[in-house]
């Protein structure tokens, strides 16, 4: 009897945790669960008994922390993988400390990709200052690899609390009013934002700090992949800088 867990709400760590606890409590083995793909039930699927929530099931805190990061990843297999790990931890076949385990390694790889994405967002968001009616509004468009925007909001609040700003993205937009954080739906595509008056100076700085005697494109692209370039004004001069060098 295959049990299907629909995707609605699964990316919310609280809801996900509730479902995992119920499944563990009902001793549902990982091979008997399918996750997320909201297709019609298979021919041989029967409707299983509804799950009862069970708060008595404890998940190790380090696992919950890892899962919160992995859940932000876009890979479909994340739910399957996390439940398999939860099941193996529960049945004593795996410990969190064993990173040499294949499942654990996969989970760490997903978490690492998410952490890198979080870090790159902090690095590569570029605000454009839009003159507002009262005070300036700093607006940015950013396309992350994974669903990290909400998790990254606190970083930008801690850094730019005295400014009014918005970070727009395809999944979710966040806005800081100067006092509170608001969310709105994602935008399908990049909005038109006027160039900022400091972009010319910044690009000039970027060009001047480059040392042509040390040209190393491979190292640059490894750390600053091309998919981020569209939102970074300074990257427009890269072809000219390389051309000038050679």
């Amino acid at each position, binding site marked *: 009897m295959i049990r299907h867990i629909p995707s609605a709400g699964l990316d919310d760590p609280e809801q996900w945790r509730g479902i995992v606890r119920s499944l563990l409590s009902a001793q549902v083995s990982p091979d008997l669960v399918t996750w997320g793909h909201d297709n019609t039930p298979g021919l041989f699927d029967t409707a299983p008994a509804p799950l009862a929530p069970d708060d008595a099931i404890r998940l190790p805190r380090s696992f919950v922390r890892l899962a919160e990061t992995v859940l932000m990843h876009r890979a479909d297999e994340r739910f399957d993988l996390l439940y398999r790990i939860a099941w193996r931890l529960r049945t004593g076949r795996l410990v969190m*400390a064993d990173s040499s385990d294949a499942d654990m390694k996969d989970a760490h790889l997903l978490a690492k990709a998410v952490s890198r994405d979080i870090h790159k967002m902090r*690095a*590569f968001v570029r605000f454009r200052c839009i003159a507002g009616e009262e005070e300036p509004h*700093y607006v940015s468009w950013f396309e992350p690899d994974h669903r990290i925007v909400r998790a990254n909001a606190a970083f930008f609040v801690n850094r730019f609390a005295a400014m009014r700003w918005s970070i727009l993205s395809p999944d979710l937009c966040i806005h800081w009013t100067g006092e509170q954080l608001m969310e709105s739906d994602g935008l399908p595509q990049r909005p038109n934002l006027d160039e900022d008056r400091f972009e010319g100076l910044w690009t000039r700085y970027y060009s001047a700090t480059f040392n042509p005697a*040390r040209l190393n494109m491979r*190292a640059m692209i490894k750390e600053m992949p091309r998919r981020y370039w569209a939102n970074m004004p300074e990257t427009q001069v890269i072809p000219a800088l390389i051309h000038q060098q050679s």
Partner: protein
Amino acid sequence: MPKMPLTDKLAILADAAKYDASCASSGTDKRTSKDGKGLGSTQGMGICHAYAPDGRCISLLKILMTNSCIFDCHYCVNRKSSNVRRARFTPEEVVTLTIEFYRRNYIEGLFLSSGIIRSSDYTMEQIVEIARSLREDHGFRGYIHLKTIPDADPRLIEAAGRHADRLSINVELPTETGLAQLAPDKSSGRIEAAMGGICEEITATKDARKRFRSAPRFAPAGQSTQMIVGADGADDRQIIARANSLYTGYNLRRVYYSAFSPIPEAASSLPREKPPLMREHRLYQSDWLMRFYGFAPEEVQQAAGADGMLPLDMDPKLAWALTFRDHFPVDVNRAARETLLRVPGLGVRAVDALIRARRHKTLRLEDVGRLTVSIRKIRPFIVAADWRPVQLADAQDLKMLVTRQRPAQLELFG
């Protein structure tokens, strides 16, 4: 003379500052501006906001206040006798660029250095004033790195440390003879005396802050220095020894290496070849071995050849292992942490993960493979439950075996 536009000044004074390797913004206090006052935050880890086509991290607005200088250091593009165009920022201009760049999330903060104009004290005063204005007039809580002028009044250095996260003084050249020859206006005695003063101040402040939370801070991200590699005749062994004496003598956070780049209007006393980037990379790797892998400086020096130079075709850890083959293979299920850290290809994180994992199971080669990037490089040096390497081949064969791929030139700093 007509006033120079800000863009031109920025181009000149960023170009003049780019030979300083450091762009680090890590290791300082944690600060935020969540209270809605001021601007900026810092956390343990720095952020590289962009990468230049040379692969280097751009974290800070790294500029000179002015590139005019009364000194005539041969290796320096800004030396008195050079014909480069000169410019000078006003303090307000530096403050505006820092704040406006920061608000747009281009940078983590400011790295300010300067040529010496009028006198050391006058120049240092100007530098301190910029940092003071950022902190006090604008509530700037981002990162500030100030280059310190060795001859400046200790009171000015003390003021610099109150505003800055990091202070640095460049020793410039690895040997005293090199310095005397190429930087006749500088003295290694004065440089080291100033580093000693900063070191004492950092220690005293840390101590005071343990007892009184309100004690003023002083350069919480410590002090660093830089050596130019390839401008004088120092070999790697001498450079490693010098770096070690600086780390232990002045408790430095980092010693940076800067491969000597041919500069415009170069003095005839200098090499004109391309910068020795691989050599610089190997020196950084040797620095890592001493700081994170428990290698004594003498041991790193043992990885150097008869000419006193680290091999360029392999990393110093591998070179050491090939020299001391009798230390291998190492049993991953039994060996102590410090022994595992000697295995070429095993990094600190992999070693720690391996130690955590082996408490719960006996590791096979496949398990070790999941903890590391390349098992192929490691295999000849380890024993696992189901693996024992054949007799370690002679050095040449082994070298072929583990260096089949060309070593990647990574930039380690940032």
